[in-house]
């Protein structure tokens, strides 16, 4: 049984179709990268996979439980098995880093405070922030915040960990460090990983399979090699970084010339 199954998923906002009948299976222990340009629907798909939104139609099954129709208790149990590292890290600014990580442990488990303290230290050590537990989120750099968010996502030892744009806003070195961290999590904890990104080097470094989205539908789903050798024009355009429209110097000059003729410019 697949860890995640998306079946005929349709999402509409104000009558505009954002996701159009998507089907996807993500196996246990697999790293799936959702690749696509801005506005392609990859973050929307992610929000439906983690149960933050309900679709217009279709199903999302996590470990066999349909989270679009399940009870609140079932949803709670599903959520305990998912860890999410948000694009903005989404750490609670009023809590220290270690309190952020301890929060789900304190509230969802009956562990003794000393055990929680130990677990928090271990999670921080995994993301190389063992000395930063006492700091507040606003005292961390962008890369450190993202790693702290990963540590919090790992707090309850989830089976599935989800990353939304992990490299966004980071320099290439820190982004590469995060890629290595994702690979480490997969190797050490045998986790299923879903990563939403539009960074090609990162996608090809960490993915087992890549699903490429365009205008709310999958263009292709395949292994790294299959994607690299794809002949689909849109996929090629994305991989080869070809622009959709090119700004031409003559056109810009013509616009400028036209503006100079207007009474507004003359006055």
């Amino acid at each position, binding site marked *: 049984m697949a860890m995640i199954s998306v079946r005929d998923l349709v999402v509409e906002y104000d009558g505009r179709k954002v996701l159009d009948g998507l089907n996807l299976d993500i196996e246990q222990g697999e790293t799936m990268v959702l690749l696509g340009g801005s506005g392609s629907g990859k973050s929307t798909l992610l*929000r439906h996979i*983690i*149960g*933050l939104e309900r679709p217009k139609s279709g199903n999302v099954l996590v470990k066999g439980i349909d989270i679009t129709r399940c009870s609140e208790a079932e*949803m*709670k149990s599903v*959520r*305990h098995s*998912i860890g*999410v590292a*948000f*694009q*903005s890290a*989404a*750490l*609670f*600014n009023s809590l220290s880093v270690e309190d952020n990580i301890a*929060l*789900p442990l*304190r*509230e*969802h488990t009956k562990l003794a405070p000393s055990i929680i303290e130990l677990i928090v230290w271990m999670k921080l050590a995994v993301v190389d922030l063992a000395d930063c537990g006492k700091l507040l989120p606003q005292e961390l750099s962008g890369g450190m915040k993202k790693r702290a968010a990963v540590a919090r996502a790992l707090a309850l030892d989830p089976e599935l960990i989800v990353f939304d744009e992990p490299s966004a806003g980071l320099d290439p070195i820190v982004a590469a460090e995060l890629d290595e961290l994702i690979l480490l999590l997969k190797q050490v904890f045998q986790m299923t990983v879903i990563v939403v990104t539009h960074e090609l080097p990162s996608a090809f470094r960490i993915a087992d399979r890549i699903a490429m989205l365009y205008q709310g539908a999958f263009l292709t789903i395949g292994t790294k090699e299959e994607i690299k050798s794809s002949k689909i024009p849109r996929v090629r355009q994305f991989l080869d970084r070809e622009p959709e429209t090119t700004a031409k110097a003559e056109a810009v000059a013509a616009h400028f010339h036209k503006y100079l003729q207007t009474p507004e410019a003359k006055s």
Partner: protein
Amino acid sequence: MATFLEGVGKRTLNQLDYIGSLNIQWWTTMRAMGASLPFVGNRYRWKATVHQMLEIGVDALPMVALMAICTGFILALQGASELRRFGALHYVIELVAVGFTRELGPLLTAIAVSGRSGSAFAAEIGTMKVTEEIDSLRVMAFDPVEFVLAPKYLAALIVVPCLSVVSNVFGILAGGVFMYFSTHLGFVVYIRDVLTTITLHDVIAGFIKSLAFATIIATVGCLEGLRVRGGPDAVGRSTTSAVVRSTFLVIVADSIFTALFYFTGAY
């Protein structure tokens, strides 16, 4: 004409939608409030409630006291300027005592709390939405209503009536200072006259009003925060809107309660 009617219809529907949202949020929060209660609820929520009580109440104490002193003084001065002509300066005591207990104490407190805490609720929750903290609570299997809203509601419901009492005391004392300097009326006599003037009905009416005002401020502040869509500019707009709407609704509610108490013979 059609456009005008369309505009009126649209605005009416928007207002109805807003009132509906206020009611739904109020009801949902009331249902979740049990978790914030001491002894029977979740100790972390009670801790958050105490923190909110300090922010809404203790921090606002100097401001509320100063506002009450100034208003008490103004009321006594204005009342005295007219009553002096009829040789009825003594009635200033009744004016200040009854005016504050029934009306000005709760109203001044509500305006101060709306400006300080209603806006703070909207800004805090709005920022949490923009930075995905509300989403991260949901994916960690926390109910944002129980986690964020309920402690604020409970704190406001406890603290606003207490602040109203403080406002009453300081307003009435300011009236006493005026009476001392204008008629050399001793403080003990003044307090005795005040206590004879105020009835239990007045105290209960003021208490009911302050509970209603606390509910309005918490509901509007939290709803404005939850309705934030977009970026930091939306947080700014929601903060302004929270103050404007809650102050307006507090005054409307005050006039309704006053009319109700007047016509039912409670005053």
